[in-house]
């Protein structure tokens, strides 16, 4: 039996990632990128809706996607810390997207073959989108890494800043339908190839921030939720 917590964690990852990516709308470096980031945000939001709906059903307490998204506080959110980090500059956003998508792709792929039919169906749909996200992020990490001196510098700084948050994605969960720890080798291989081509250096492993899966977040999440939930909470019980 799949745990509510596991599905909620994946749903929250996608939801919070969507919220951050959508912040780029009207701010991207070029018009094509405005469209691409909105597109990826929409994919993440779509996956979040499927996962949260399923988590609500598993929980059996009558909470739908909106109850879970809008009426939980930050201590009840189960997303990884990576997705809640602020967007920073475009390099930080691409570093985050590279890590997220290089993790989500093998995860959704593995889920698409798992025994839980509902998760398998969600995984099958989402992995196609993750492949596109990974492609997009890889291309930009290469462009920035092997672009100008300035873009190389920014891309390396971004990678160094975000890298420690990778650790939390692979913490072992042997009870889960897919144990995230088993995805590490695949992730490392994919990311190493991109960084190599981008002339970037893989940061050393050291500091290992975590806690997101237990609802112990960074200071950023509460602000993100305050903005996301403000209108919904101001009109209890209303339909939209």
């Amino acid at each position, binding site marked *: 039996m799949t745990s509510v917590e596991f599905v909620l964690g994946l749903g929250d990852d996608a*939801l919070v990632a969507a*919220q951050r990516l*959508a*912040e780029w*709308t*009207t*701010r*991207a*470096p*070029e*018009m*094509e*990128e*405005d*469209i691409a980031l*909105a*597109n990826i*945000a*929409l994919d993440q*939001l*779509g996956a*979040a*809706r*499927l996962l*949260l709906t399923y988590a609500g059903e598993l929980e059996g307490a009558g909470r739908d*996607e*909106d109850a879970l*998204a*809008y009426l939980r506080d930050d201590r009840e959110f189960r997303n990884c810390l990576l997705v809640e980090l602020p967007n920073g*500059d*475009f390099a930080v956003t691409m570093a985050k997207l590279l890590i997220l998508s290089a993790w989500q792709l093998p995860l959704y792929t593995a889920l698409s073959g798992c025994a839980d039919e509902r998760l398998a169906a969600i995984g099958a749909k989402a992995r196609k989108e993750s492949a596109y996200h990974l492609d997009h992020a890889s291309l930009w990490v*290469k*462009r*920035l890494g*092997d*672009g*100008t001196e*300035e*873009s190389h510098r*920014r891309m390396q700084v971004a990678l160094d800043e975000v890298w420690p948050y990778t650790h939390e994605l692979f913490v072992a969960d042997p009870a889960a339908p897919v144990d995230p720890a088993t995805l590490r080798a695949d992730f490392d291989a994919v990311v190493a190839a991109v960084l190599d081509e981008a002339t970037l250096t893989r940061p050393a492993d050291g500091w290992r921030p975590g806690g997101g899966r237990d609802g112990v977040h960074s200071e950023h999440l509460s602000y993100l939720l305050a*903005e*996301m939930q*403000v*209108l*919904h909470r101001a*009109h209890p*019980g*209303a*339909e*939209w």
Partner: protein
Amino acid sequence: MYGNDFSAPDDAPGGGLLGEVEAAEAALREAAARARRGGPAPGEDLAAYFTEVIDADQKIEPRDWMPEAYRKTLIRQIAQHAHSEIIGMQPEGNWISRAPSLKRKAILLAKVQDEAGHGLYLYAAAETLGISRDELVELLLGGRQKYSSIFNYPTLTWADVGAIGWLVDGAAIVNQVPLCRCSYGPYARAMIRVCKEESFHQRQGYEILHTLAHGTPGQKAMAQDAIDRWWYPSLAMFGPPDGDSTHSAQSMAWKIKRFSNDELRQRFVDMCVQQAEILGLTLPDPDLRWNDERQAYDYTQPDYDELMQVIKGNGPCNRQRMEHRRAAHAEGAWVREAAAAYAAKRAEQKEKVAA
């Protein structure tokens, strides 16, 4: 799932106009099938040939000779239209992070994404007239080309997102549907695509208002307040009254414009009155009433002095909108430079391999 996952109520607007878009598309195909002469004969008067194509309701294409003023008017109009799509992302984008349900968030995100897409088609259409997108963007950022005055008004509540869909997109469609038959081929074709999507957005906006108007008293009040604030700015979108419109006569002769500002404004008012009744909301005009003789509604004109002020740069959000666009452009410069440098390196590598 995603943007398009609800069905509009049967009484939602857009049906009739969408029919007109489809008719324009069919007419475009027929005109292409009639196949105009391949071009002017050697030594033939180019201006006479141009007039003949326009008179025959056929399309001027990028390679055709055209009067310089026709080219300039089209560049100005298409660029302004493209800029409006890009600046128009801001007022609605303002509510993406706070959309009150995940479904509404997805719909709004998809809509704002569509607008960026419309901006891109329109810049591409303008580029067929011999100007580059970069030049047009510079003209916008330098304040030398305009965008629609409507986007200088703020979105203060969620209901504004609904009002923009219903009224602003509604007015845009009434304006743009005749452009689907405009004499310049690339613009007409872009308008057909844009109008189909806009009509969908208008239904979505109407649906938001419909839900609010049938919701809690607080929601209904929010919807009414939004309509009260957006009604006159939407009427002003059709431009100054016919007597004061500088470009109209020539544009009509060239079949760029097909109807006057006042004709389109009247058509819009007539359409909205009935829809507002179905919503159970009031249009903020005490003098709005059916005129049996004219077979149209009498209504109070928008404040054209206010319109002129907004066009001059003195609306509530002009400075904010421009500043936002300039900041995004400036902050993205290093990314665009990186992409160009990377592309140049790749091209160089290919050359080496080939050599």
